[in-house]
Every structure is written in structure tokens, then in C-alpha cells.
């Protein structure tokens, strides 16, 4: 599978966050997006996911359907307070057409297995984040779109995140990861957003 973005732009609230952005990603590669808050990292990920329309340019998926091959992990963890950890994950497995066979492995990988019968409302922010990341492991998909996935994670959680990303790439998966911290993901490419704005300010 191959993802090619050519000349994409994003206009928010009357100003261009980025204009004419192009990149291409193939199996096993990871694109790291960096930049300050409000520089358009989230907008770019949402455009790639198809949640936000492109203001210019195009994004082409070769060898797969976007809706069948994409994982999106946004800022919010989409954890329901009233459902147990296990129910939360099972629901997304069902909705995304996964058999749930990897669910147990996903929970233990993210150190959530002991929490499985507990309701979402008792989880800490970091635990909720890990539950969101467990989706990545439980449901096999080629392209991961991760918006600051290390937010709220402790050192151990961050190590687990790097581990699952590495495993994903080893299996031929692709990932686009945004981060405003130094996340040591060994990117094959990187885009620093918000550069143009610096020149505006100067």
C-alpha cells in the first residue's frame, strides 16, 4: 500500500495553516509531524483520515481502501465511562469488523488486562490513552494516524507505544505521527509545520 499526498492545503479561520504540502509514504515507513500548537498537525491528520475536506491538492491511496485500512487516534480517547475496559474495546472491534481475536493480546500489551472488568470512569488519563492505543493492536490496519499519541503517557507507556509502532512497521504498516515533544520513533520522514508563520512574525 502507498499513500501519496500532493499539494494539499488547509485553510482554517481565514488563514492557511499549510499550502502545497506533498509527501509519499510506503510500507514500513513513518512520517513524523512536528510543530507548535495550532500549526496544523491535527488538521493534516484529519485531512488524511478524510474527516476534513482538502482545500487544495489530492490524497491517493494505492492498494487499499482508506475506510478499510486506516486507524485514527485523536486527542480524545473515545472511552465511554459507563462501559468496562473490555466492553469499550470489544465495541470498536465489532464496529471495525475485527473478530476480536487479538483483543486479549491488545489488553495485555497495553497493561490493561487487570483493568478489563473495571468501568471507564475509574481510569486515569494515561490509562484511557492506553485503551485508545489498544485499538491499534486489536484491529489490524495498515495506516495509523496518531495525533500526539504520547500525551498523558508515562515513561513505561511511552516505551510500549514505541514498541507497538516498531512492531507495526516491521509487519509492513505505515504510520503518520504528530508530536510536539521529542518522541523517539525513528521516522523515515519528517515535516515541520508552522515554519511559514515564523517568517510572518519576523
Amino acid at each position, binding site marked *: 500500500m502507498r499513500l501519496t499526498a500532493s499539494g494539499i*492545503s488547509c*485553510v482554517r*479561520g*481565514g*488563514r*492557511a495553516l499549510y*499550502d502545497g504540502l506533498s509527501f509519499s509514504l510506503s510500507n514500513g515507513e513513518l512520517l513524523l509531524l512536528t510543530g507548535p500548537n495550532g500549526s496544523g498537525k491535527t488538521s493534516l491528520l484529519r485531512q488524511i483520515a478524510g474527516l476534513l475536506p482538502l*482545500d*487544495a491538492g489530492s490524497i491517493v491511496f494505492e492498494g487499499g481502501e482508506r475506510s478499510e485500512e486506516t486507524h485514527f487516534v485523536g486527542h480524545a480517547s473515545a472511552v465511554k465511562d459507563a462501559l468496562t475496559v473490555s466492553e469499550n474495546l470489544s465495541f470498536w472491534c465489532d464496529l471495525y469488523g475485527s473478530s476480536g481475536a487479538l483483543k486479549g493480546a491488545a489488553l495485555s500489551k497495553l497493561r490493561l488486562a487487570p483493568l478489563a472488568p473495571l468501568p471507564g470512569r475509574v481510569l486515569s488519563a494515561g490509562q484511557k490513552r492506553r485503551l485508545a492505543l489498544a485499538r491499534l493492536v486489536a484491529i489490524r490496519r495498515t495506516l495509523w494516524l496518531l495525533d500526539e499519541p504520547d500525551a498523558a503517557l508515562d515513561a513505561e507507556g511511552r516505551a510500549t507505544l514505541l514498541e507497538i509502532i516498531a512492531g507495526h512497521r516491521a509487519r509492513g504498516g505505515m504510520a503518520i505521527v504528530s508530536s510536539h515533544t521529542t518522541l523517539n520513533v525513528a521516522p523515515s520522514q519528517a515535516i515541520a509545520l508552522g515554519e*511559514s508563520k515564523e517568517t*510572518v*512574525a519576523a
Partner: protein
Amino acid sequence: MPRTPRMKMSELANPNRFMRFSRWMIPLFAALALPLLAYGFYLGFQAPPERDQGYMFRIMFVHVPAAWLALGIYTVMAVAALGTLVWRHPLADVAQKAAAPFGASFALICLVTGSIWGYPTWGTFWEWDGRLTSMLVLFLIYLGIIALWRAFEEPLLAAKAVAILTLAGFINIPIVKFSVDWWSTLHQPASVFRLGGPTMHAAYLTPLIFCALGFSFLFGAMLMVAMRSEILRRRVRTLAIFAAQEVR
């Protein structure tokens, strides 16, 4: 210099043609509307008194065109909504937004004149007659659309949301109209006086047509004025955003 986004430029570029074109279309429409209305009203006041209600029928020359326009403007808005969603025409949502208050106003004029007409003829300001009730529902739909416009901050997002509501309403209004008619015949054996239909005498029909045309041109002129103000309002908004960026 800040980079000017491409999208915004096209948005400003296209209305420029409209701004030029409307500058002479507005006086033209107004110039057509006034003599048409004046002649229509003149003929209307010349028309002989009606057998049952004397001179009271004269309110019809405002009431009936208002009813037609209230319906017609919704159609205009539905077409504009298609323009927003399907063709993504930058003027479509401006037209849609500008037209809604006029639709609501004509619906209100229709209801109020109907009431004034109804009091001496039916002996009551309000009758749960099928037509009146449908017009009241249409008026409420207009108010809902205006409220939805006001609820959004970002005009382009508002345009799309309102377009969906307008189209859903457009499909639904005939059903509401049918159900209200069905309901009113159920409850109201046709005791209501009704002027109208193809049997109307030419002495009433001719002024009515002149008035309807006059009001239509008046609406056209007012719509263009409102569209111009909306375009200018959006330019001010865009300029304010650019100005804020410059400072940063």
C-alpha cells in the same frame, strides 16, 4: 507578508462580478417594482366592491402576493441550498442567507393581512383553516432557519448546515401542507369564505397580477441589497482575521 490562502481569493473574486452587476440591477428592479405596484394598487382601488365583503377584499392585493412570495422564496432558498452543497457556488449561500428574512417577512405579512381580512369577514382574527395553518408552519420553518444561521460563527459551515435543513424542509413542506389540508377538512367543513380560484373576475385578477409582479421585483431588489451587505460583512470579517495575523 502573510500568504493569502487560495480559497479566500476565489471567494472574494467571484462576488466582485456580482457586486458590479448588482449595482445597476438594484435600481432597475426598484424602478420596475414601483410603477408596477402603483398601477396594481390603482387598479385595485378602482375595482368594484365585492358582493359579500364590500371593499375589504382590497387587502388581497398585499395578502396574496405575500403568500406567493413566501412560498416562492423558499423555492429560491432550496435552489441556493443545492448550489451550496452540489455546485459549491460562493454566492449560493449568500443568497440563501439573505433570502431567509424576506421569506419570513412575507409569511408574516401574509398572516397579519390574513388576520386583518379575517376579522370583518369571518368574525375572528384567526381561523384554523388549512391555508393559514400551513403558512404559520412555513413561518416557523423560516424562523428556525434564521435561528440556525445565527447559531453558527463560521459562515461556510453555517451555509452547509442550513442548506441541509432547507432541503430537508423543502422535501417535507408538501407533506406538511397535505397533512394540514387533510386535517382542516376533517375538522372544518368548508365554512370559510374563499376568494380565488380560476373563476376570479378580471377586475380583481389584473391588479393582483400587477401587484404580484411588483412585489417580486421589490423582493429581487431587496435581496440584492441584502446580498451585498452580507458579502461586505464577510469581507470585513476576513480582513479582520488578516489584520489580527499581521499583528502576531
